[in-house]
């Protein structure tokens, strides 16, 4: 187990380092932020002074070396736009994003797993058709459209929920539903598929023959064995939720890291984009590790040596 962990953590450093190189190259390929940051009436000399002050006039490899060195010290530099440390700007938005993503994930799982299970058990019934239809709609509805529709119906017309920003739990409702929809549909389909496989297996037939009650049969014996692919999916979905959060956070004016990333990309605010992307890479790596460890807990046959 320890050897496994060490291997994985070393691998994780490799992944993050790779991401850092790629994000640096891509950002610097997309152009110099000086012209976008300075007003149109600035002179060439003023633009040059800005580039010099920010170090953009140094050779690319020197800029990279300095970026890498600072990165090793946890220093992403000052945001070009805000004039504050980039990592701090990214970190202070993590709680809001995490709150939204975790709520959406919980919402998705709470709805999708029972719905997927019922659909599998009652295969081809009206319930199953309804669940499958819902999954289809959920996966094919653009987040942008869904968010605006929820705002118009539940915010503007019915006045049930606020439509922007944070505050009480009411503020979470519409963005969480918007963000959860796609994930909910995917987990529901997966649960249904996985349950169908399990329901046809020999050991379940044996269990039925031994007289295990149907409730216990489904929720204890079948679902437990169907869990493995679902847990993997949930892990991956958390990543999807974080990336889809860019749109959801923008529509609902949610002060999260997605919105910060969006604006930073538009502004070519290199330090902030780098901080957000690397923070994202770190969280992906951590989530994957946790999912792998969860396997061992869920399936006694899996042991990491």
């Amino acid at each position, binding site marked *: 187990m320890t050897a496994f962990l060490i291997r994985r953590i070393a691998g994780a450093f490799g992944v993050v380092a790779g991401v850092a190189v790629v994000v640096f190259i891509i950002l610097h390929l997309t152009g110099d932020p000086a012209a976008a940051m300075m007003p149109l009436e600035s*002179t060439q000399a003023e633009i040059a002074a800005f580039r010099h002050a920010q170090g953009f006039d140094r050779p690319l490899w020197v800029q990279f070396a300095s970026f890498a060195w600072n990165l090793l010290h946890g220093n992403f530099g000052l945001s070009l736009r805000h004039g504050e440390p980039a990592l701090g700007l990214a970190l202070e938005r993590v709680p809001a994003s995490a709150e939204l993503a975790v709520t959406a994930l*919980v*919402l998705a799982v709470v709805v999708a797993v029972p719905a997927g299970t019922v659909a599998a058990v009652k295969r081809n019934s009206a319930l199953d058709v309804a669940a499958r239809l819902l999954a289809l709609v959920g996966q094919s509805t653009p987040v942008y459209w869904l968010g605006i529709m929820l705002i118009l119906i539940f*915010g503007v017309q019915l006045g049930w929920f606020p439509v922007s920003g944070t505050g009480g*739990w009411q503020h979470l409702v519409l963005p969480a539903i918007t963000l959860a929809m796609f994930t909910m549909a995917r987990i529901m389909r997966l649960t249904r598929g996985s349950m169908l496989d399990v329901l046809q297996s020999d050991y379940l037939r044996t269990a039925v023959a031994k007289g295990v009650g149907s409730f216990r049969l489904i929720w204890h014996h079948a679902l437990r064995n169907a869990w493995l692919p679902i847990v993997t999916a949930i892990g991956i979905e958390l990543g999807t939720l974080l990336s889809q959060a860019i749109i959801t956070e923008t529509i609902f004016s949610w002060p*999260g890291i997605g919105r910060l990333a969006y604006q930073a990309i538009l502004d070519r605010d290199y330090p902030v984009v780098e901080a957000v992307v690397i923070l994202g890479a770190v969280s992906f790596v951590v989530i994957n590790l946790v999912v792998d460890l969860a396997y061992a807990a869920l399936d006694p046959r899996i042991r990491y040596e």
Partner: protein
Amino acid sequence: MLERPSTPLAVRLLVAALCGGALAGSALPAQADSTVTISQGVDPVTMDPLKRTITPTQNASMNMFDTLLRHDREGKIVPWLATSWKHVAPTVWEFKLRKGVTFWNGDPLTSADVKFTVEKIKDPAEGSEQGPRVNTIARVETPDAYTVRYVTFKPTAIVPGYPWTTSIVDAKYWKEHGNEYQAEHPMGSGAYVFQSWRKDEELDLNANPKWWHGKPPIDHAIFKPIPEAASRVAALRTGETDLITNVPPQYEAQISGGRNTKIESARSDRVLFIAFNTTKPGPQQNKLLRRAFNYAVDVPALIRTVLGGHGYPASTPVPPNFTGFSAKIPFYHHDLAKAKQLLAKAGYPDGKGLELVLNAPVGRYNRDKELAEAIAGQLSETGAKVTTKIQEWTTYVNQTSQRALTPLYMLGWGDNSYDADNTLTSLFESNARISTYANPAYDTLVDAARYEVDSGKRQALYDKALAILHDDAPWIFLFQYDDLYGTSKRLQWRARADESLAVDEMSLSN
């Protein structure tokens, strides 16, 4: 404060989502009547008023900091921190400061603060975007605590240093706390006192009871950014906000038809135009072609169809409310026959052999991409083949900086000096960074106007310079935008041409 995520919360959410009806009326927080909530598209990026020039950030700082002068609604300069200002020598402008003004912490506001402010912006190491505004000032002199003198490099007819936008900061406070601290802890003398700022969420301000101008009518002001236009409109309709900026024309009916909402508009100082890059080889170097294209574009039709009627055709790059505008310059009225005739004279009968690219940004100006496509369509009616090349802003503006966009490119220009000088020099002088026009006779005229102190003579110089631009047609002259705002009916406020949002100019009725 935010509630932390937890499973019970998720369960409650689910219940809430399923039976939200029971919650009706409880979801929206009650607001005190003397609070105004303002929603711009983006949050201020910093509380440091000396760094950036972008409007949403300046709109926040202008409520916390005072400036030496202000513009009234008509663009006339009026006293503010400075009670008087005059030209005391060809290169010296003198300001007399109002006595008894203090910062929120009680520090008196004196000439030393003004000097500190200008020097801070001028310092290249600060990398301030406001640098270009003070680059004509050689040094600042402070003969006494309430007299400030700006000494300029050259004689100038225009009050230097943008005293209507430059926020005066507390030098003592700044020196005590250093640069980085200012980004989140402002210390101003203005109408509203900083309370708290949660980035991308809320900036809270309270009326300053000791403000030298008297306590403003509204007790609290909240700046709450909402990036998405449709969401901004929704938030206005639900009463979550009182004022929204940048309303796309398609939402006008929703807002003006709303029970508690109304539309405010102002003729913006921002002009939109298509420039010909005359510094690069190509048919756009031919003046006849440039004039032909001006006749080919139907500006009123563009305003009607693409902007829902919200725009004003422009005859010159200088808006009518600016010093230096010339009413003598005619419009290019749409005349396709004349356009074709001029094209033939230019050597392109029926536009034969003419293939041109119209460059435009997307998402930078209201309906920019749509306008570019419509204009390309109108130009193609001459027989020329005009296609659009649309790019994202950062890429686009870099090419502007290198004068690389050619032969045609769209650009918008907003200036809050209420004077022709900055516009006419930055956009058309041969050596200006983004200028793609070169005409020594024109350069001489605008240079002379910059230093001409006699207003009659100065206007005559601008009349001549603008006549040259009309005749030479380095642009397709398009229009000034009409800025649309949505407000709640309880808010009394009139939108301004310079896009500023001074809360002390607002009041609420119940």
